[in-house]
């Protein structure tokens, strides 16, 4: 149960706003962290905390792209292929990365279940292209060589007992 497990964090969030409803977005992040993606269970719990109808919470979750409606790999890689990055080779980088990880479709996950790769719009790092976010953390000025090193690091991290970098 989110309400118990994250009681202190939730209390702090609710204290920020005069209206509990404003807490829906931070609470959805907590539920995503807890359950790996947005689940019905998480939605019902968030709705109960803020005293709203679950359908309202569900529509908020549906509107915003950072709430993942499906399970993702341990590492969610969002590669920017918007215009400035594309002018600096981001399309090729994105294609190479998918190939390397044996992913065929945009938003697909590598066979080992570790990496989900998706292309996204401008991430406010256009001077550091090609770039991506891994679980919402910036990784910039990339090429495939550097990328392979990052992937090896993340693989090792996931293989060890060390919990991968958290989203929340």
């Amino acid at each position, binding site marked *: 149960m989110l309400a118990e497990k994250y009681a202190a964090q939730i209390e702090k969030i609710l204290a920020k706003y005069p209206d509990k409803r404003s807490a829906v977005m931070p609470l959805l992040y907590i539920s995503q962290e807890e359950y790996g993606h947005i689940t019905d269970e998480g939605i019902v719990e968030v709705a109960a905390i803020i005293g709203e109808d679950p359908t309202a919470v569900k529509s908020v979750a549906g509107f915003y792209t950072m709430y993942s409606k499906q399970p993702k790999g341990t590492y969610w890689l969002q590669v920017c292929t918007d215009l400035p990055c594309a002018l600096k080779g981001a399309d090729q980088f994105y294609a190479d990365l998918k190939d390397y990880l044996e992913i065929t479709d945009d938003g697909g996950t590598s066979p080992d279940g570790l990496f989900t790769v998706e292309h996204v719009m401008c991430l*406010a790092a256009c*001077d550091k292209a090609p770039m991506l976010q891994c679980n*919402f953390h910036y990784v910039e000025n990339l090429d495939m060589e550097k990328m392979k090193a990052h992937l090896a690091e993340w693989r090792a991290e996931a293989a060890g007992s060390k919990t991968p970098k958290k989203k929340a």
Partner: protein
Amino acid sequence: MTTNGLNIIYRERDVKNIHELKVYTKHGGYEGLKKALGMKPAEVIDVVKASNLRGRGGAGFPTGLKWSFIPQSEPVKYVVVNADESETGTFKDRQIMENNPHQLIEGALIAAWAIQATAVYIYLRGEFWDVAHALDKHIEEAEKAGFAGENIAGSGWSCKVYTHLGAGAYICGEETALLESLEGKLGQPRVRPPFPAQKGGGLYAEPTVVNNVETLANVPWIIVNGADEYKKIGTDKSSGTKVFCLSGHVNKPGNYELPFGITFRELIFEHGGGVTNGKKVKAILPSGGSGPIIEATDEVLDTPLSYEGLSKFGSILGSASVIIMDEDTDIAWVASRVTKFFKHESCGKCTPCREGTYWLDKVLDRVMAGEAEQRDVDLISNVAHNMQGTTLCAFGDFAANPAISTIKNFPDDFKKHLKA
């Protein structure tokens, strides 16, 4: 025209570690806030008005004037900082928040004092996850030192500062969509009036000032140095410095803080290290994906950059997200890429925008696949023109801009793709 290295915003370039509170205060930090607290709120607004500071979020609206719209009789008022920074090609606010965060906090609190706000909310795009968490720590420190929160600088006035993370939606940069989102709803623009500054139109229906990060980061300097000093920087109608986010085909992409009035030529060649591979510059998007594209003629390259300077070329400076494209760039491809952004990001509330972006994208795909004829290109222009001025928010105009301006200014780039 001197392009001196005056850093009002990016002070980390002059002072190492200015993100730390003790370094910031040692170098004049929070002096602007203290000074403002010794002035009447209306006097603070007058100084900002006189400084000619204009909004850096894109529209260039006079900041002091905006603050003066807030009805003082209302007991609850808010300052909301727009840190959504999602415009294609824009990456200036992130750097301010990462490297000089206290200056934003200070500027926001001066705004809050000026309108007698009860709280400040900083709305950051969701991808600024790490930025927001670092900012929370800086706010906490400022509170502990008495520069935010309770009884600020011993004045008896209190104002809390909070961060709020979005979750991936470009439209939340539009100020009324942002307010909806902050209230926990879908980020869709509101019908105006009432405007955010009015009762009924702002956050939780209370009068609210919404300002961009860069706008507010200018305010402490203005309060400390005065409006006249500020007006000495820049051009007649555009005062101060502006951060130019330079990206695309340049050797040294990055943020360049320069006085208004510098030219594209100076920006690209003196500061940006020239075009990659020694190529010529063909086209410029001066305001990210949302402003019209222009051909990089000598006249364009030598025009002083200001809010007023680009109108004669049918474009705007907007947020000054300057995307450079070299002579080999296919502008039809540019149109298609930028249009995909808008199709993806339309909030879907109004039909001309939702349907228009869908069709623009579809027909542009056809152009890129070599399956289109001239009448398809004409159709693109038609659809785009019909979107303009018919939508609830300016997104509809933004989304039409790339299609219209690329076809108008680079017709040959489209012809190359047409079926014989």
